[in-house]
C-alpha cells in the first residue's frame, strides 16, 4: 500500500540479513537477527497479515532471541569461519 515504507522496510531487511550472516561476533548476530524479525513483523502487518506478524514479533523477536542468548552464554561467542 504505502510503497515507500515497503521499499524501506525490505531494504533494511536485506541489510539486516547480510549483516547477520557476515558478522563475526555471535551476540551481535543474534541482536541483528532480532532486528530482522522485528522488521519482518512490520512487513507482515503492512501486508495485512496481522496474525503472522503477531507470531513473528512474539516468537521471532522475543523467545528466539532469549533462547539464542541463553545458548550463547554456555558457548564461546565467536564464530570460527
Amino acid at each position, binding site marked *: 500500500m504505502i510503497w515507500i515504507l515497503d521499499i524501506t522496510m525490505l531494504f533494511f531487511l536485506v541489510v539486516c540479513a547480510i549483516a547477520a550472516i557476515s558478522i563475526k561476533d555471535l551476540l551481535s548476530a543474534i541482536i541483528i537477527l532480532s532486528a530482522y524479525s522485528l522488521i519482518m513483523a512490520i512487513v507482515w502487518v503492512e501486508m495485512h497479515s496481522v*496474525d503472522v506478524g503477531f507470531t513473528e514479533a512474539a516468537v521471532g523477536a522475543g*523467545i528466539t532471541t*532469549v533462547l539464542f*542468548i*541463553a545458548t550463547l*552464554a554456555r558457548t564461546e561467542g565467536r564464530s570460527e569461519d
Partner: protein
Amino acid sequence: MSRIQESVIIRTVVRIMVPFIQLFALYVIMHGASGPGGGFQGGVIFGAAIILYAMIYGIAEGKKKMSDALDKILASTGLTIFAATGLACIVCGGMFLQYHAVPLLPDPAKVSRYLIDLVEIGIGITVLAVMISLFFDISPPESEPEEAEE
C-alpha cells in the same frame, strides 16, 4: 548476580510490567477467535513474561514460581484439554473439532464459540509451559551475565 540483575530500575520495572504482560497474554488468548492472536501467541507472551522474571530475579527464583513438576503438569493439562474437546466432538457424532456437533447449549453457534475458546486456552497452557521449560533447560546454571531482552 550480574550487574544487570542488581539494577534497581530493571528489577522494579520488571516487577511492575510482568502482571500487565500476563494480562495482555490472557487478552490475546481470549480474543483469538474474533481478532488477531490466539492460543499460540498468547501462550508465548505469557511464557515470555515468566522468562523475563526468571532472567532478572535469577533462575532459582523463577523455578520457585514455575517448578519443573508444574511445567510438566501444565503441558500435559493443555494437551488433554485440546484432545478432550476434539474427542468430545467425535463422541457426539461429529468430526474431530467439529464443535457444533456437541449438544451442550440449544444454540450450536454459541457452543462452537465457547469450545473454540476452550481449545485456545488448552493450546495457550501447553505453549507457555513448553516455552518456560525450554528456557530453563537451555539457560546456564547461575551467575552468568545475560542480556535483558523484550
